């Protein structure tokens, strides 16, 4: 198995006990397109904190189960990503869409079965975020929990008929449709790429909506002044305001990047009362890290939108000069010290 081990030349935190491997940090990630993992690993190396990076791709070369990281050697786990893509290509002799789809699903399930074994192998409290909650996070449930913590959320409903949308439009001038799960990216045979983005429905385009449709999440459209992405790290909030309102092109969804006139991203301090409520929410979910998306309307009211436990923090850290990758590396390093206080 090709585990990418990065042991520093002269570890200062690491103890040298006889015969036993010393504690290290386990990072679950993917081999490609993971700048944030790379960045945190570089800080860990620089700070001489021993770690083991296990990419999902590495599991595909597992020799035996005992090759998996052992609980006693791991001080903390940061679960960042599962896998980018399966290294091997499995192809049918004769192309058949349905069978291919079924097989692909099967392989994903097989992989998940192996991957989630790690959740059991390593003590639950060592995970920065509870892996079971993280893997089964449900948007509707998170919104319900947020409301329970008295955090304001936009009116949200799941509907299946045009009639229902019509009646909602009597209360809200505009509503948006977004997935209950995650946005997807599609590619056509010619290589064209399509991304799913939030769509707005109002009286003028209501006629495009079919009478009956697949259960869809709709939400009141908030006229935003700006958006906020807040990264949570062990009790502290590091927030960034995203101003996109001047820019027609990015108005709807700031993921729709406009490279020529990017949104303005600046440091932001969440009000203490909101911080406390959000902190409560993170506690309920057993998360010590994660990103929260919020929106602020023209009157200055805050709306909670969603949580991303994997935490897109690179896009907050750099523009706000927060050094979140370094802070995360230090936090991970502290768990080694807690585990082996006598050796320091």
């Amino acid at each position: 198995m090709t585990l990418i081990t990065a042991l520093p030349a002269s570890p200062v935190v690491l103890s040298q006990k006889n015969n036993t491997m010393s504690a290290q940090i386990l990072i679950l990630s993917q081999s490609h397109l993971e700048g944030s993992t790379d960045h945190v690993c570089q800080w860990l190396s620089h700070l001489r904190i021993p770690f083991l990076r296990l990419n999902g791709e590495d599991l595909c070369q597992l020799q035996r189960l005992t090759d998996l990281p052992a609980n006693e050697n791991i001080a903390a786990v940061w679960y960042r990503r599962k896998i980018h893509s399966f290294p091997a290509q499995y192809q049918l002799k004769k192309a058949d869409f349905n069978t291919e789809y079924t097989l692909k699903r099967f392989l994903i399930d097989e992989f998940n079965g192996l991957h989630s074994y790690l959740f059991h192998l390593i003590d639950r409290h060592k995970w920065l975020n509870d892996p079971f909650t993280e893997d089964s996070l449900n948007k509707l449930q998170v919104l319900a929990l947020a409301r329970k913590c008295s955090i304001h959320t936009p009116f949200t409903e799941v509907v299946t008929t045009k009639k229902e949308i019509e009646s909602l439009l009597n209360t809200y001038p505009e509503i948006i449709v977004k997935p209950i799960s995650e946005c997807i990216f599609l590619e056509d045979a010619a290589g064209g790429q399509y991304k799913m983005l939030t769509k707005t429905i109002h009286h003028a385009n209501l006629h495009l909506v079919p009478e009956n449709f697949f259960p869809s999440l709709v939400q009141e459209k908030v006229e935003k002044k700006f958006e906020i992405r807040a990264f949570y790290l062990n009790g502290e909030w590091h927030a960034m305001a995203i101003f996109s309102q001047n820019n027609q092109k990015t108005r709807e969804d700031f993921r729709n990047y406009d490279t020529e006139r990017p949104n303005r991203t600046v440091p932001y301090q969440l009000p203490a009362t909101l911080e406390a409520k959000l902190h409560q929410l993170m506690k309920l979910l057993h998360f010590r890290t994660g990103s929260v998306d919020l929106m602020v309307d023209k009157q200055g009211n805050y709306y909670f939108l969603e949580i991303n436990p994997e935490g897109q923090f690179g896009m907050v850290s750099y523009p706000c000069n927060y050094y979140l990758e370094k802070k995360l590396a230090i936090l991970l390093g502290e768990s080694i010290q807690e585990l082996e206080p006598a050796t320091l």
Partner: protein
Amino acid sequence: MEYFNLYANCQLVTGANMSLLCDLQMRRYYHIPNDTAEVITYLQQHSIDECIAYYGEDNREAITGYIDFLLSRELGFTDTQHLPELTPLSLSWDRFGDITNVIIEYNEEIDYNSAFFRELFNQQVHALEIRCYQHLPLEKLRSLLEQFNGTTLKFIKLVLPFHLTLELASLDQLVKKYPRVKSILVHTSPVDKMERIFAESVPVIFYKGSINSCLACGEIRTNYFTTNIELFTESQHHNTCLNRKLSIDLQGNIKNCPSLPESYGHVSTANLQEVLDNKDFHKYDNIRKDDIKVCKDCEFRHVCTDCRAYREDPNDLYSRPLKCGYDPYTNNWENWSQLPMKQQAIACYGLTALIN
């Protein structure tokens, strides 16, 4: 009441006479009179009306003109208050890696496969410049580039002399094999031009001038200015030319920069940790622009780089770069090499021949 909120990543730097409004996110700057900068600063504490009242009705048009300009460049926005949640940008700076940038004056005779060299590139060096003054066959270069496979090095710049055998096709092959090479400068070229290779991703700049020693280094020009958060924050705390940087000169000596006299050992025998632990090696690290004479009064100080090797007064460590022709007190750019006050230093550094 209307208030103007300036975005925190738009930073004002005030000089003797003019100021620079640095948009660190959009990576550009605006050169503005100190009067304008003063109004912008005042607007951070007061409403627009209060500002007009303070400067007088006569200045109403000027002030609203400034605000229109700031709004049109999206450097801020107006609101019914100064949003207290919009906090200042932290100007702290740090990097993973004891050495982030390396320059090598390449010499065929030197064996770079030493313990020092390998350890150096295990330290998460970010960028490397390989300068070749003499023609060398590309095979030689390949074996050097080979050594960086598997390191965290992200960026290699090659400086090569023009040669008839140096074809774009072979450079294209080279960068495909070693994708860390992201920029190439070909000096002593018959023409000045720019090409792009590797699906347009790597610029190859052909330059007529010849680069045959480090004496040509250290020029300060507006097109070398960089407006970004990395340089701006580092500049608040450290020397922007030498902090966390290391060079290996033509003889294989380890230096802060090829142009500086001090050597801290030889690449074939030195121990990296010893070099890093050597106090002398760090003596330039914390000489900030704010500590350097003249530069400290210059509005460009946090977008400009520095040069400690060629100084206006060779005897003063805190003297400003010799090869800067800007006068922050008059805001004029002159040809530095012709200025009478610089002649003594030019002679002292042996730059006379280079200039003529």
